[in-house]
């Protein structure tokens, strides 16, 4: 169990750092979602399941969806073909 907690905490740090380092906004939101999911498991391990429910619903669900909608509104989600054109 101790080992599992260490893995979770380490991946939490990795997620937190990589959110800031990714250049693609869509990818960083997906990483942010996974951060919330890991946090949810950690809340369960810390024996507060009510916080885990809230974290899963708000952190991983609603907030990320709002981010996605915002990215769509500001047209930051690029289609695959155009992305490659910009690169090449």
């Amino acid at each position, binding site marked *: 169990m101790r080992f599992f907690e260490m893995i979770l905490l380490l991946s939490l740090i990795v997620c937190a750092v990589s959110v800031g*380092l990714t*250049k*693609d906004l869509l990818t960083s939101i997906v990483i942010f979602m996974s951060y919330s999911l890991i946090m949810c498991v950690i809340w369960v391990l810390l024996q507060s399941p*009510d916080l885990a*429910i*809230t974290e899963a*619903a708000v952190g991983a669900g609603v907030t990320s*969806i709002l981010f996605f909608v*915002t990215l769509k509104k500001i*047209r930051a989600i690029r289609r695959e073909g155009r992305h490659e054109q910009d690169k090449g």
Partner: protein
Amino acid sequence: MSRIRDNYENSRCLKIKKWIDGEVDLLASGVEIEAPEEAKEAALPESDLPNPAWQPGMRRPKAAKRRRRNRDGRDIRYFRRIYQLMSVFLCLAIIFILLWTVSYLPAFGNAGNPDNNEVSARYIESGLQETGAVNIVTGMILDYRAFDTFGESCVLFIASCCVLVLLRIDAADGDARARKRLREADDRVFEPKNDVILQRCACVMVPLIMVFGIYIILNGHLSPGGGFSGGAVLGSGLILYLNAFGFKETERFFTEKVYRRVTLSALTFYCLAKSYSFFTGANHLHSGIPLGTPGAILSSGLILPLNICVGLVVACTMYAFYTLFRKGGM
């Protein structure tokens, strides 16, 4: 990130060296949404411009030339280098101060810590008799500290009001501009509607999510959870339903009028109920609210209706956020 680059020009090391030298701005080149050239010009500070009635389309050859000369000048470059070094320094200083503060905190779980005082002892010892709630956390946040929770519900309501003010497009006046903005904001026209996979999944998932949310709200005083968690789950279920079946289906039961009535009545009931119980409690009067037997679903006095109120407010707020972000109205 793990890609191997063989040319030195694109390597991260050179970029960092350039950034420290103040030649390039990593942030400026990494931002995905490039503003158009005119907007960029307008975003620059123009305090020295004498003409207040300046339009974004007008040309300002003199100011532009002066700015270009300044951009090439060494003082700007020095300023940028100092600026970046100072930002790094500020970050390190804040990290150092926070860690230093943490090192002065007492050890976690120590019996002599200042948080281990008579308040928590009272909550743990006589919480069950005084509130009637088996779940001690709900007993605390909805009975002893119910006014805090009322403030939190109000914060949510105010947040949704702010989003309403910022994002709402009022098409009631019916002029052409508002209708055009509404059409632009409604981006659902371009995406695949009636997606079969999503609809079948939603048919299975949405009832389960809804029942789970209602269960969490109604059992808030018995098991972990409560108004906020259950309301968030309900709101997520509503959003999933909306995504699968479109606005036409949800508008049959959830319009702006419903949102306004539900939120307002829930907050008003919360305020009145808690004012009554605080008034009687402060004056040592008997409130007349039966606590019931602990463990039964109809027990613990006001906590169950207050949980329902908080859950309704939270679910409505989540749903309203999504619809406002999506099409600027409910």
